[in-house]
């Protein structure tokens, strides 16, 4: 049972050579010295997966904005919005 009552699934896996030093540096993950190897690797998995999800979301966000920037109305609209804003005296 993990934190917050989440059921953890146990699997057997190979640890890549680059990652094998991670359990010696729990502080890199914000964990106290002496944290068990399995706990460090568990946290590493969590961070890695969250990073993958965040990067995917950011890539989708970039693609969305790039598509919006190509909207034929977009240049005229943003230029007009700038003119209206500056004329308004809000600056």
């Amino acid at each position, binding site marked *: 049972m993990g934190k917050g009552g989440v059921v953890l699934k146990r699997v057997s896996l190979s640890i890549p050579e680059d990652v094998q030093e991670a359990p010696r540096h729990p502080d890199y993950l914000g964990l106290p010295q002496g944290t068990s190897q399995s706990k460090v690797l568990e946290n590493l998995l969590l961070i890695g997966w969250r990073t993958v999800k965040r990067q995917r979301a950011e890539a989708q966000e970039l693609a*969305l904005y790039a598509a919006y920037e190509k909207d034929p109305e977009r240049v*005229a609209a943003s*230029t007009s919005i700038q003119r209206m804003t500056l004329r308004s005296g809000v600056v």
Partner: protein
Amino acid sequence: MPLLRGTIHELTDVPDASPGSRGFAVLTNDRWNAVMTAIGGAVVRPEILPFETSYSVRLRDGRFATAARVISLRAPDAAPPGDPSPIGPSQGSLTDEELDALEDGFVRFLQIPMLLSTSPTARRPVGDAATYPIWGELYRGREPIAGERKRFLVVSPNEWNQATKIASVVRTTAQTKADVAQFPSIHGGRTRACCGDLSTFGPSELLMARRDRPDPATCTLKEMTAVVRGIMVTHDLADAARRAAT
């Protein structure tokens, strides 16, 4: 090079302002800033109105960054020749504390705690509602865009709009079809709000006369909630909204 969120840039050629006195604190998120040719940010001024204080933060240099005046400007390297960008050189960056305080002011200004509450309730307009832009209503812009007077949705609070006659608005478009938070659907999907294009207009830039109003001219509370959720993404306000909820 894209502008970075939290940096302050000089606003150049501002009428009746001494050089260097006005700034632009970038607020749109860095994915937006990396791709888009118009950037959102808060105006930095040497002075603010008394009722602007709850939406503003006093900076180390004595000026104020104010979330009541978040505007959208063309990026310096993307402005067309006839309409140069007023965004000038960097004047430094907001500290983490200043940025947090500015975000907190923006969250209050957009009434995010009310809209994200379990039972949001819109406050009624104050005073004569025909004399200022009303929160949650759409107005046509005075200046045609691509030959048409486009609709802008008011997102600033009525008390502010009434007192100053200026209003923060997001443009709407029927061109964008993306069904995502940043472009929430309004009026049954006929149009979408472009949350990243939020800007602030004075009284003469919106057509207030009844005959000029679009039909329908009002958004529902659910639609307004979706719009502020979109602004929370484009202007990176999720952490501030969480702070406001605790």
